[in-house]
């Protein structure tokens, strides 16, 4: 009985008993979640445009952050390093299309997936050989990101300013990307490709252009995520594992749904923080690492197509 109370009753009493603490936990989860949303957005974009699960998404986060910090370490001022990094991400998108995707067109999806694994190891090697393998510190201050904190309710609720900035920047990025997809010609073309590949090609949409665009956008998203995440921990290759968190987010949200990626990211972010804080001690802590996968797994049983994904009905 004792254990059942601890699992099913006590945590909820704790939440109601200290609502400000509960709010704090939700906030922390939200901040993490919105970064998951961003990463998942990058995945969905590439998946919709080419049906490829981009294994390299995580390493792109590291590579972007590393380039930015590495340039700065070598004496390039932040306001120059940032545009250079953006250009590097463009060059990456361009090269991926020209040297990898273009020659693999019409190959089975698994081949393309393998190619993204190849890209991953290429980027690890390239990043290490140029910038070295040691962890680096994100140049938060130079990028004019705030670092103080704001408190509410007699210091009971503490919000880090960097987290607030991260949320605002992530939210703005998501809104801009949403408008881009809905309003611009290339965004509409991209949706057309996602909807029906052949049809889009037949009306003259250039798949090559679309690929460069989606990889570039994913690269920008990776850069934003890398800066924000790097500001919270540090910039190292270990950072790329946050991309693995995108997997449960995608299962939850559906691989082809952008709103799904956003909502899924928030659910996973908040869910794992609440789980860790209120239930974590029951199993000796650090359930944050795997809870997301559990949530996704349970979810798979009930809605395999994800929250917003289309139901897949194979006609045979």
């Amino acid at each position, binding site marked *: 009985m004792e254990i059942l109370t601890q699992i099913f009753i006590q945590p909820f009493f704790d939440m109601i008993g200290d609502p400000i603490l509960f709010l704090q936990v939700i906030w922390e989860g939200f901040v993490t979640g919105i970064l998951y949303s961003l990463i998942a957005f990058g995945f969905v974009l590439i998946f919709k445009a080419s049906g490829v699960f981009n294994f390299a998404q995580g390493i792109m986060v590291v590579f972007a952050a590393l380039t930015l910090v590495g340039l700065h370490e070598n004496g390039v001022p932040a306001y120059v390093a940032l545009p250079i990094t953006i250009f590097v991400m463009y060059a990456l998108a361009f090269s991926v299309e020209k040297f990898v995707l273009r020659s693999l067109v019409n190959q089975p999806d698994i081949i393309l997936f393998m190619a993204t694994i190849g890209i991953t190891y290429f980027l690890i090697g390239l990043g290490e050989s140029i910038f070295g393998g040691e962890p680096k510190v994100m140049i938060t201050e130079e990028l004019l990101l705030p670092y103080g904190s704001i408190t509410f309710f007699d210091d009971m609720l503490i919000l880090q300013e960097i987290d607030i900035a991260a949320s605002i920047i992530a939210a703005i990025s998501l809104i801009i990307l949403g408008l*881009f997809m809905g*309003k*611009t*010609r*290339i965004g509409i*073309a991209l949706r*057309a490709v996602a*909807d*029906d590949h*052949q*049809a*889009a*090609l*037949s*009306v*003259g*949409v*250039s*798949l*090559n252009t679309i690929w460069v665009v989606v990889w570039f956008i994913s690269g920008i998203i990776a850069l934003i995520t890398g800066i924000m995440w790097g500001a919270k921990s540090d910039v190292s290759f270990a950072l790329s594992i946050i991309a693995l968190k995108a997997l449960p987010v995608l299962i939850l949200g559906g691989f082809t749904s952008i709103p799904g990626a956003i909502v899924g990211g928030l659910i996973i972010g908040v869910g794992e923080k609440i789980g860790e804080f209120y239930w974590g001690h029951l199993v000796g802590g650090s359930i944050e690492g795997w809870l997301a996968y559990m949530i996704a797994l349970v979810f798979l049983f009930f809605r395999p197509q994800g929250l917003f994904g289309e139901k897949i009905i194979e006609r045979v």
Partner: protein
Amino acid sequence: MPAQNNYPEIILSVDQINLSFGGVKALEDINFDIRKKEIFAIIGPNGAGKTSMLNVINGFYHPQHGEIRFKGLHRKQMRPHEAAVQGIARTFQNVALFKGMTTLNNIMSGRNLKMKSNIFWQALYYGPARKEEMENREVVEYIIDFLEIQSIRRTPVGKLPYGLQKRVELGRALAMEPDLLLLDEPMAGMNIEEKQDMCRFILDINEQFGTTIVLIEHDMSVVMDLSERMIVLDYGRKIAEGNPDEIRSNQKVIDAYLGVAHSN
């Protein structure tokens, strides 16, 4: 130029095309010419390579050997985007539409290449982009009237019956104002009435807009009525070429359709 007057102008030549998938030879040494403004048919049993032929023409498939010459330009390999830019439009055997979009927007997507204004124009200076949109809208409205689909303008195409979807798909291809229109079994799955409508549209398109049409169709009576010339494919090879009368009396064609020539 006067010397050419006796000869019909060739818009597309298919020269020694060979295409295989792994061990399967989908097309073997295919040659034929398509004349400007004609309705040309490709016929043959299932799996003969008809769709593959269209896929080669509009750049979906790249043949291992041979080349295509379209409007005088040689092409060994062509991407679908380039084919569209050069004026080749098509429809698909299994309707390929943007299912969630309305009829209007599907047909509008055919104007993709006619729209000049880019993202920056759209974002910074809405004026020209808007004017352009209006002009393209006019063309689209004309096509909607032409194909008699005013009543479904705002319907998401996924909800339409198959026959109408095929018509919308034709509309989208027409919106590209193509010089060469490839139709892959445009009447498959239609009832008699729908077939008659479709035949009428194909003839009207050919006459009113002077569009050259390549047609794949199974219904022999339809093919014989519509097309001036045709080729017959069987197991990836061209077994006959000619006008309807020549094809009707060709022994090889009769054998292919009755299955006499195939031992298995």
